[in-house]
């Protein structure tokens, strides 16, 4: 961890009310964080010319709020409490600030983190996509996440439901490169709650980053800003599944602005969840047929490690499928690559519900189908080399 006498003050500045990225950038750029903090506490922050110009007409109101908050704020105690729970912060210009972001056009002025910041290194690939992912999208995200991590690529994502979570799960299954997550809320506000465990696993294995000070709620406007950090950290951005109007498209815009290559995973033209990715492909994004396409974009072709079975077994690609018994063969043929209803499978196979259920569950253990809740779909990665 960094040992930086200025970081507590930078963290305190970031926690002031009415704070925006622009205001914080001006504060951090004006002088050393400690000096700026003293100016804020003394009510003299408006005398700093760069800050005054950013605050504009509301300068008096904002600076008085800051001053009254700063006078009640115990910088040292707050910092110590944060360090006690394993969290810390770095500031733009301070030691330990991640190099990829230091060169960014809109660098986050203060970054709070949990885990090991040294993990934020190149090469890195962002895996992003919709929260309402299909089983196909989750599979692809999990597979790419694991294979990229095995090849030593840092997987950057946002820990959201759907694609983000699946990408992190995949990355955690490998050990060669720990994952990086950029979240939109404070580090003590786990969002979405359903990912509490995944959140903890990422913090333990890799690093959790956020621009938001502790206690910040996941307000909707924070997510587009969060996406710019994801784009800034990654060398390539892979969109796994997204609607044409999805939030992942913000990440794509940020990636374009930074000259980062954007790759998209082709999806069914019948699926609403792939309209955005298919549009990206039409606009010239590189298609992702398997992990090699991503590695090529990272100039890492050939770094792919031999496939090994992960502990879960089921979420694994099956390169050489084992021979199936005739019933399983019939049932497998009745399942589409898109979600198929169980009653449709029964109609196609003529089997009874319990017989079909047994076969489908066996196929699921073999990793050939996946399902539940009355829906089943084909599963398993069609490997180009195999």
């Amino acid at each position, binding site marked *: 961890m960094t040992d930086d006498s200025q970081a507590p003050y930078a963290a305190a500045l970031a926690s002031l009310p009415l704070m925006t990225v622009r205001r914080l950038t001006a504060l951090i750029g004006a002088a050393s964080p400690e000096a700026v903090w003293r100016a804020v506490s003394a009510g003299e922050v408006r005398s700093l010319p760069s800050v005054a110009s950013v605050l504009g007409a509301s300068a008096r109101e904002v600076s008085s709020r800051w001053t009254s908050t700063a006078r009640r704020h115990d910088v040292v105690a707050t910092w110590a409490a944060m360090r006690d729970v394993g969290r810390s912060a770095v500031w733009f210009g301070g030691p330990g600030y991640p190099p990829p972001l230091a060169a960014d056009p809109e660098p986050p002025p203060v970054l709070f983190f949990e885990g090991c910041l040294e993990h934020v290194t190149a090469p890195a690939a962002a895996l992003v996509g919709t929260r309402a992912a299909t089983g196909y*999208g989750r599979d692809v995200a999990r597979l790419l996440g694991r294979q990229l991590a095995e090849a030593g690529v840092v997987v950057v994502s946002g820990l959201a439901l759907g694609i983000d979570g699946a990408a992190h799960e995949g990355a955690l299954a490998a050990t060669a490169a720990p994952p990086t997550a950029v979240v939109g809320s404070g580090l003590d506000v786990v969002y979405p709650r359903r990912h509490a465990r995944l959140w903890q696993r990422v913090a333990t294995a890799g690093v959790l980053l956020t621009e938001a000070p502790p206690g910040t709620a996941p307000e909707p406007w924070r997510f587009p800003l969060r996406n710019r950090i994801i784009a800034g950290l990654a060398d390539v951005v892979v969109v796994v599944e997204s609607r044409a109007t999805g939030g992942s498209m913000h990440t794509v815009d940020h990636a374009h602005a930074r000259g980062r290559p954007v790759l998209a995973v082709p999806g069914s033209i019948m699926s609403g*969840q792939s309209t955005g990715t298919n549009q990206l492909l039409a606009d010239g994004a590189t298609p992702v047929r398997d992990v090699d396409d991503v590695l090529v974009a990272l100039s890492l072709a050939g770094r792919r490690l031999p496939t090994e079975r992960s502990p*879960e077994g089921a979420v694994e690609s099956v390169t050489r499928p084992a021979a199936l018994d005739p019933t399983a063969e019939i049932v497998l043929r009745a399942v589409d690559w*898109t979600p198929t209803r169980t009653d*449709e499978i029964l109609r196609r196979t003529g089997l009874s519900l*319990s017989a079909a259920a047994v076969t489908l*569950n066996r196929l699921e*253990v073999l990793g050939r189908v996946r399902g*539940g809740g*009355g829906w089943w779909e084909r599963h398993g990665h069609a490997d180009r080399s195999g």
Partner: protein
Amino acid sequence: MTASIPAATLLGVDGHAVDVEVHVSNGLPCFTVVGLPDASCREARDRVRAALLSSGRAWPQRRITVNLAPSSIRKGGAALDLPIAVGVLVADGVVPAEAVRDFAFLGELGLDGSVRPVPGTLSLVDAVTAPTIVVAAASAVEARLPRRHRVRPVEHLTELVDALLGTSPWPDDPPPSPVSLPAPMPDLADVRGQPHGRWAMEVAAAGGHHVLLVGPPGAGKTMLARRLPGLLPPLDRVEALEVTRVHSAAGLALPPSGLVEWPPLRAPHHGASAVSLIGGGSGWLRPGEISTAHRGVLLLDEIAEFPAAVLDALRQPLEEGVVRVARAKATVAFPARFQLVGTMNPCPCGDGGPPGSCRCSEQARQRYGRRLSGPLLDRFDLRVPVMRPLVEDLLAPHASPDLEPSRVVAGRVVEARARATGRGVRANAELPSELLDLLAPMDAPATAVLEFKLRTGALSARGLHRIHRVARTIADLGGADVIGEEHVCGALELRTDIDLLEQA
């Protein structure tokens, strides 16, 4: 002169014996009723007076005091009209006291002297010890159900007085109603397709599991739910008497045989108040919907639309099978052992469709899921996805062998229930979690399936018990002693994987 006439009054669904004491003495003509009568009971004065005058009897121009003993119990309803009228006649000397010895009377009087049936006749008759009981002709069948009394049905006060005086014989029974057939219940054969739904109903009936049907509007959730009572075994005599007692006390129409022989179905609208559901009311403590669904099915259509407080009021009765309603004036216990069936949409837009196709926001979906509290959700062993029927199934010929009628399914249900009885419970839903491993052993392949599901996070520890219990029922339906792979897989197939439900 005084007279004391045995009768009974209703409190909740139970009858309590009451002695109607009438005292007629010299003094200013007046007529008072004492002994904790409620409003409907006090109005008896006017009905009794008019009925006696209409029957051609003179009203004694003397001081009449009616005491309803014991005076600690609150008396309600009009069932005491007839005993009061008889008491006045006896106390006035019109009818000799010996003529009414060993007689009890129950009935409401019309102003023209007609005798009308009263709610709760079965419970009232049960509370009476006198060997002969006089009731309204329309209540005769019901009054005979306890099989302990000689029942004398009368249609008019005149008939009764003439019979008591011996001037004419007791009137005959009303003509017996046509031979009672089981009420036509909706048949499972009407449900096209829906292999999941049909099978879920069979499993629910066999195991007594509470069911939550989750699916888009128009998928046939309600249609399936209404067919559940038809799959349940008919009530035995003890159960039938329990149910009839509640239905009679609630004033519901009884079948021609007088006995409710089939599991009832109650489906209150989601606008229902907590009191209408669990029972109560300020004046007369009336059984609620959960009690009229006793030994039957309570269908809560669109369960997520019910107010949370109303749903949570169901938790205690679901646990104990009885609901105790306490009011300042009385506390009564209503029986409430029912099978709960809920239907709901998968999310606020209700559209369903393949996983991932719903466009509701995460927050909206979670809010929707949270309308059912965790403890209530926990009671549903079966949470079945119901999808719109396939077009092919809708157009299939009606006589398809897949479309089994209810009676075929019900036959299997009876056999499965017999196996559960061997385990010491009425149905598998009552198997305690801690005894599942002992009473419902699983073979190795079945355990392997569950282990895989647990390891991949597709099944939670709570979900495991539910699957285990349902698999036991499926094995019972298949006649297997040990739970096998097919039974577990079948149970998994009857489970919706709506994350918001598994969250709770």
